[in-house]
């Protein structure tokens, strides 16, 4: 479609639609503005993984494992992108049944540059979704950091993308059974954060703790990297949540505003709790609180108002803080980089809170109303809870099975103790992060 043609249609459509009846008015028009915004958002979401998450996680591991994290982020980005194009997108977003899509859009069959998804090109929608398919398995690596074989990471990530991520995306965003129930997940609280968090928790249980966990110091090696990465995550999240409006419109603006406020509130809350409990606020604390705020607002971001977002950020900061301490110190699970307490718990909390703060009856804390078919807060909350439980259970079972099977295929998931002590950079990649 040429620019002149587009302009003509944009100018004439409102006038013509009055004369020509609903058939013409209902025809979806290509939107250059929306396309521009989703193109930008796709870049922003990819920025979250490369370099955002890579730096965020890279700084949190010991210096002998920094390259392994960067390598895993990059490898997963490449593999997930190709798999998403070949099969993942089709399984998630073609018609299929309520549980999973079909193969009709494999390799983008039947889709060309004039194909539309809503009013943006379908290849662009597929690309935008691809960036989500990249970051979700990349988030999981925090659960098994510093001890899993590189081969196992790759096989698991690829299989998990097709067997967990794609079906759940179909349930929630691809017209599947949760979508039909009216589940609210604006930008991936269930699809991204619960799935990644639960898979990381399962990984940590299956692999067991790193050598020295809770007995000797396993300290972050470069918090400067971590804070830099966290900053990139924050910026990229504007595309993650704002882009999920699929248009350059008020919903996107409000989603970004809600996202930003919740991140700020989460950061303040986490640092504040540390200051109160330990006498000092830490840099790692403030950035972790920010990520918790972002993870918590994500499912709710387009459905709640800014005042609701502040409450969500506050609760995200509190609940994720105590979950982190509880999982590490009480349950003694070595989810190395706290993926479950920060993303998983944040995603669960946010998904439930979306059912509350989307209500229009909460005064200044009101949102934009419940999904069609849900009349009361209780009804919306029930759907949200069903979404949480189903996503949690399905992800946990399939991830666990995958780990067991891949462990058998590769003769164990974990590197040897000697390799672990020497660090994955040398033992898995024959390289060192630093020669200082």
């Amino acid at each position, binding site marked *: 479609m040429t620019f002149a043609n587009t302009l003509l249609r944009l100018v004439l459509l409102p006038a013509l639609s009055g004369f020509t009846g609903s058939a013409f008015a209902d025809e979806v028009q290509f939107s250059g503005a929306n396309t521009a915004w989703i193109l930008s958002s796709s870049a922003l979401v990819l920025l979250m993984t490369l370099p955002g998450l890579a730096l965020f996680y890279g700084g949190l591991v010991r210096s002998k494992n920094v390259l392994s994290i960067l390598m895993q982020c990059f490898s997963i980005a490449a593999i997930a992108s190709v798999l998403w194009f070949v099969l993942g997108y089709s399984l998630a977003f073609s018609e299929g049944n309520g549980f999973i899509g079909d193969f009709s859009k494999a390799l983008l069959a039947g889709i060309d540059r004039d194909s539309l998804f809503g009013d943006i090109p379908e290849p662009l929608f597929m690309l935008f979704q691809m960036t989500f398919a990249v970051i979700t398995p990349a988030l999981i690596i925090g659960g098994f950091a510093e001890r899993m074989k590189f081969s196992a990471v790759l096989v698991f990530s690829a299989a998990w993308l097709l067997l967990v991520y794609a079906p759940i995306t179909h349930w929630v965003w691809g017209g599947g059974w949760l979508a039909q129930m009216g589940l609210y997940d604006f930008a991936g609280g269930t699809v991204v954060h619960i799935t990644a968090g639960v898979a990381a928790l399962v990984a940590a249980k299956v692999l067991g703790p790193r050598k020295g966990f809770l007995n000797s110091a396993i*300290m972050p090696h470069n918090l400067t990297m971590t804070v830099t990465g966290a900053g990139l995550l924050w910026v990229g999240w504007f595309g993650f949540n704002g882009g999920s409006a699929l248009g350059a419109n008020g919903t996107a603006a409000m989603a970004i505003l809600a996202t930003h406020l919740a991140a700020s509130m989460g950061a303040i809350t986490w640092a504040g709790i540390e200051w109160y409990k330990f006498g000092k606020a830490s840099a790692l604390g403030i950035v972790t609180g920010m990520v918790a705020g972002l993870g918590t607002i994500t499912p709710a971001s387009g459905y709640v108002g800014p005042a609701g977002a502040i409450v969500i950020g506050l609760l995200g900061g509190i609940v994720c*803080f105590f979950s982190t301490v509880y999982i590490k*110190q009480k349950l003694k699970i070595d989810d190395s980089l706290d993926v479950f307490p920060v993303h998983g718990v944040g995603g669960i909390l946010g998904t439930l809170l979306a059912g509350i703060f989307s209500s229009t009856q909460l005064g200044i804390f009101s949102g934009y109303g419940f999904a069609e078919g849900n009349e009361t807060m209780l009804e919306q909350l029930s759907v949200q809870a069903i979404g949480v439980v189903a996503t949690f259970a399905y992800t946990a079972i399939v991830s666990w099975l995958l780990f067991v099977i891949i462990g058998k295929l590769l003769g164990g998931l974990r590197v040897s103790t000697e390799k672990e002590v020497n660090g994955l950079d040398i033992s898995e990649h024959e390289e060192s992060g630093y020669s200082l």
Partner: protein
Amino acid sequence: MKLITAIIKPFKIDDVREALTQLGIHGMTVTEVRGFGRQKGHTELYRGAEYAVDFLPKMKLEIAILDEQEDAVIEAIIEAAHTGKVGDGKIFVTQLEQVVRVRTKEEGVDAV
């Protein structure tokens, strides 16, 4: 001849150097070291995981002096490095058997 080895808090190194220069001390060797005495270590908290850090950063100062300078040098270091808080450091004095200046091959007192 004596060798004075002083372990002090890093932020006091400039004060100590100045005090020693005023005494006419011409040379010294400074090393960044880590250790602990009565100060013990401190704890660091990362997302609720508490780690004990036993070894704290300190500066080690080594100076070769004449026997008669000993009291004044010790006095000057104490004066300059003192904060009154735990962890101020320690001064060790050892007998120095020989000193040789590499450039001139001077030995003993002449080389100090």
